């Protein structure tokens, strides 16, 4: 019923991300149960839920890292795993930040950036500054605090100016100031027209940042706002 209402409101606009009747199981455990959600251009869609409720599996499926047992995922009308190999056009944070521990934050970003773009040291430095990290620091990532790693993960997600952001617990490990900084950053990105899907345990983050809010419980997704 809620999905039907949503379709009516959004009629005439193609969602950037559309998940339709997604089901996914690992062995006998069904992790996603008929999940449907549309994410519209320039909006932030928030998903709240306990650990193990299926948020990360949904995000991984949207990115193309997992295959659905049934259902479909469309990115700007193109079906995942049919028209698309993976969701390459998104900035992604999934699970805990995973970087090369023996390199500095700058080197990690530079390496990832150059996989698809020409070298641009000024841009990398600017992105690091934007998330509150020192671009000149030679400190290895293995010696970073959890908050610094999270800032670096956010930097890698936004550094290529991707129009879509998949953010799984982006505020994890950040202190009070860090959370405030990142909220401001995400609001700026939203104003620039980026489309984001965000998972968070923190209700305040969701209330402030998200246009649409869903709750996931035992693999079932329900719209709450």
């Amino acid at each position, binding site marked *: 019923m809620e999905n039907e209402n949503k379709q009516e409101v959004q009629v005439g606009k193609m969602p950037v991300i559309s998940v339709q009747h997604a089901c996914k199981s690992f062995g006998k455990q069904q992790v996603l149960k008929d999940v449907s959600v549309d994410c519209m251009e320039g909006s932030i869609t928030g998903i709240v839920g306990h650990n193990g409720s299926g948020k990360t599996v949904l995000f991984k499926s949207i*990115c193309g*890292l997992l*295959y659905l047992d049934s259902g479909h995922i469309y990115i700007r009308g193109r079906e995942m795993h049919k028209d698309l190999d*993976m969701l390459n056009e998104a900035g*992604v944070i*999934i*699970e805990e930040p*995973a970087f090369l521990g023996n390199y500095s934050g700058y080197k990690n970003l530079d390496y*990832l950036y150059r996989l698809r773009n020409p070298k641009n040291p000024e841009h990398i430095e600017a992105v690091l500054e934007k998330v509150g990290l020192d671009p000149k620091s030679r400190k290895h990532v293995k010696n970073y605090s959890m908050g610094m790693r999270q800032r670096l993960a956010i930097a890698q997600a936004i550094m290529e100016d991707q129009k879509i952001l998949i953010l799984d617990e982006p505020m994890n490990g950040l202190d009070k100031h860090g959370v405030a900084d990142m909220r401001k950053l995400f609001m700026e990105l939203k104003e620039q027209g980026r489309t984001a899907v965000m998972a968070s345990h923190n209700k305040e983050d969701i209330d402030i940042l998200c246009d649409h809010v869903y709750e996931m419980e035992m693999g079932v997704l329900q719209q709450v706002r």
Partner: protein
Amino acid sequence: MRFIGTVILMIAMVAATATGIDRLMIDTQEWITPWMAPNIIDNAHFVMTYGFAMCYMYSDVPFMQKTELYKIVRKGKKRWCAEKILAISLQGLIMAILTIGMTILIFLPRVQFDWDWGKVIYTLAYSNSIYKYNIVARGSQAVIDKYQPIQAMLICFLMLWLEITLLGIFMFTLSLYINRTLAVAVSIAIIAMQMTVYLAPLMRVLVYVLPFYWCRMSIYGQQAFLDIYYPSFAYCLIASILGLVICVTAAMLRIRKKEFIWNNEE
């Protein structure tokens, strides 16, 4: 880091296999030519230990580790897989070059260039000096009789590169289908099976299915035992290339439907 560790292991293995030759050179006042590689790599113990070292080197090929996430998302699965295969092949190439290079560097400064095999290698192959000086790497009569030095060096390098790469890509493919732990375990088992090659009932089969054994140039087409013959060079070359093609194809097919679940690997 493991690549550096493997290089150090390889240097130690070459040094251990070449031990005693320096004393022979000092006593005879003859310097060695740069063509020892086919003779050192012909040693059965060297080939097996070298195989284990290669298993160690490729055991940290980033199969499905978390640090790959950001790369896969950016590259896409097919390109990621293709680049991994290319990287394994390049790593094998570098290791083969370093190994061949080390079989020359280890004898410096007592190396002199000659188009022929040189007196020291002939002595190692045709005299009992190896026992007098406790030399492990005997010169191979089969290699010296059959090949010119340059020809032997090229075949030795080619087979070493092919077998290292085949091992790495086999491990990568197996890790995509099952997991990394099994890939490492199976590869170690295949290398260890070289110990059982001399058991006559198994020999008939094993010499045809253990790729690292094919780095030994002296075996090509030779009689192994009664009516059992080692595979020819053509067989070893074609089988290695075929193995590579099968592994690469299998990996590229698998990656299309592969789910990326990091926890299984860490």
